[in-house]
């Protein structure tokens, strides 16, 4: 018999090692799946995990890893603060969209003026847009005790409708022959979020993601507010007695996560995506929830988890076009990663005991 026994305290050793175990288990299970599909499992795993970083065209994919990981990390850092405090912002996708629209609108309003002030103004508008969008569930929760999970999630669909309306109406490219989509920021240097060093993928969004990691780390380990966030999540009653103002904490967590999501949207729309289009959002706001948990809500963990997630996306695309693997197989592979991560999580809180306990 194998029995699970709860550990008195979560194991530090297992907390550190389980993500690696999960990746290993995914490689094995995924390899079996690829073999069943008639593909060489070793080639597939190498294509997904090795080629983007060390393969023939790694010079290009490494930069794309940053482009893909940047928004994930930036959003996930914001979400992790709330998740630690028990504030569940599920609507980062909506805040991402609104941030992009607000920032892009500011940039497009100045077209074709060239000034070094335009991009910073867009950044402020993007952050503010995301912040305000997140304040809707925040204020509703504080004032009327509504559920922030539902409100923030449903506001994603509102944001998507606004995005479609903007791409087809107010922000539509006047020179676009009636087709939807805004002007492309690529052809507007003052507003374009270009690679800071050419071909590295290191645009302002990635820089902000790194800064966010550092700030979150300091906040959580050195700052009173960080302590309050952790306390509110683990022992809400104790936090209240300890002088934590729960309303302020809710607004802070939603505000910061909304602002960071809005910034991520602005950097994406003005850089890699290039324009406001109907299908601008591709799910970064939702994937970031996974990244936050994959990274154990820890800033450094989120940094690594964001990069890993980006790797499976880019490696997965490579496997599709090079090995002819279907897109669904890649999604199943990513699903396995999350499944195993949650599964091995058990080992952090429980220990395995082999053999029967003494019969009473």
């Amino acid at each position: 018999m194998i029995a699970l026994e709860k550990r008195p305290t979560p194991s530090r050793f297992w907390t550190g090692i389980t993500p690696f175990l999960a990746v290993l288990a995914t490689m094995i299970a995924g390899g079996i799946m690829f073999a069943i599909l008639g593909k060489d499992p070793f080639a597939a795993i190498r294509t997904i995990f090795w080629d983007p970083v060390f393969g023939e065209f790694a010079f290009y994919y490494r930069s794309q890893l940053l482009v893909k990981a940047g928004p994930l990390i930036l959003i996930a850092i914001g979400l992790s603060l709330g998740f630690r405090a028990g504030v569940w912002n599920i609507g980062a996708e909506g805040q991402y969209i609104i941030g992009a629209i607000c920032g892009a609108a500011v940039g497009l309003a100045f077209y074709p003026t060239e000034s070094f002030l335009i991009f910073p103004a867009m950044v402020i508008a993007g952050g503010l847009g995301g912040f305000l969008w997140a304040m809707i569930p925040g204020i509703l929760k504080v004032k009327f005790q509504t559920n922030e999970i539902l409100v923030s999630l449903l506001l994603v669909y509102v944001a998507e409708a606004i995005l479609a309306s903007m791409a087809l109406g107010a922000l539509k490219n006047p020179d676009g022959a009636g087709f939807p989509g805004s002007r492309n920021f690529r052809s507007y240097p003052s507003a374009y979020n270009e690679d800071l060093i050419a071909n590295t993928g290191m645009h302002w969004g990635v820089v902000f993601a790194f800064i966010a990691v550092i700030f979150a780390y300091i906040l959580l380990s050195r700052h009173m507010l960080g302590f309050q966030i952790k306390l509110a999540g683990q022992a809400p009653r104790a936090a209240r007695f300890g002088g934590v103002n729960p309303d302020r904490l809710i607004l802070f967590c939603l505000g910061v996560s909304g602002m960071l999501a809005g910034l991520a949207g602005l950097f994406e729309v003005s850089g890699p995506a290039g324009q406001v289009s109907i299908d601008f959002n591709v799910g970064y706001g939702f994937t970031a929830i996974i990244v936050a948990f994959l990274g154990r809500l820890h800033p450094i963990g989120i940094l690594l988890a964001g990069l890993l997630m980006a790797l499976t996306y880019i490696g997965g695309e490579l496997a599709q076009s090079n090995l002819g693997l279907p897109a669904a197989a890649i999604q199943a592979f990513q699903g396995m990663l999350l499944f195993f991560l949650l599964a091995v999580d058990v080992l952090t809180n429980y220990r395995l005991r082999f053999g029967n306990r003494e019969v009473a």
Partner: protein
Amino acid sequence: MKRRTILAGAVAALALTGTAFADGHAKTKVGFVYVGPVGDGGWTYEHDQGRLAVEAEFGDKVETVYQENVPEGADAERVITQMALQGADIIFTTSFGYMDPTNAVAAKFPDVKFEHATGYKRETPNVSTYSARFYEGRAVQGHIAGKMTKTNKIGYIASFPIPEVIRGINSAYIHAKRVNPDVEFNIVWAYTWFDPAKEADAATALIEQGADVILQHTDSTAPLAAAEKAGNVIGFGQASDMAEYKPSPRVSSIIDNWAPYYIARVKAVMDGTWESVDTWDGIAPGMVEIGEITDAVPADIKAEALAMEAAMAAGEYNPFTGPLNKQDGSVWLAEGETADDGTLAGMSFFVEGLTGDIPN
């Protein structure tokens, strides 16, 4: 200015690598980027049939690669770049939203040929655009729909309010109205090209409002399934024959036949005769086909529909022939006048009689 120079340098660097791989292999490598899954049974399915036709035509002389489910935007740019890096000689990008990414990548790989479906931007000499005059097929559909409806209500599942879709609605309406002055069009904007659940919802809603004919500009078979479930409702295959719903609810279909174009363009690359062109073919050259009209349609209506198809194939009939007014009552085309391609390409207005506004 400085940012521009950096960009230029980056382009040159990438261009060099591009050249090195463009001519280093014997087989002609052909890439396809798909917006949906190859099994969608509609739009992407037909493009993939074109890819298979290229393989069948040239056998060992070509190698084809494809990637499905590619989001429109930053991800598309990476996928296209990846194909170019891996040595593709010609890349077909098969959705409108790939327009800016295709042109951006094309600027970096001057020796690779790019073919973008349904767009209008050809910013460098290595980009071509191609599309089909689907509205010719819509005319036949409109005729059958107008004759077949008993409730005089026709439901139309539109995807996005872009010229291509608006042309289809106008063409279908003009021809339905001509044979049935009492006909009404009820249009639902789905804001998606492929989303079976959303399409089914739209179809069901239209049927509940009394429509007994459903026309669709979305790619899945879900509306036909909804029509089948409702009974006494007919529909048409979209982009692909959707023959599994024969003889009813699917009474006919518009089939996009990309194979001849793809074969011709790949051949041009092989022969070194490829040039940037803007192709817009209809029924006459065989890019648009009318799928079998089933026995659910009375013989006389079928004969009229076939006669209209034959007239368009012979170049004797243009679906947009005056007298036609715009929705606001102003004159668009005088008696006997036909629409010019420029107006059609950017069509952003409904014709007289259609109710509702084009959303923006």
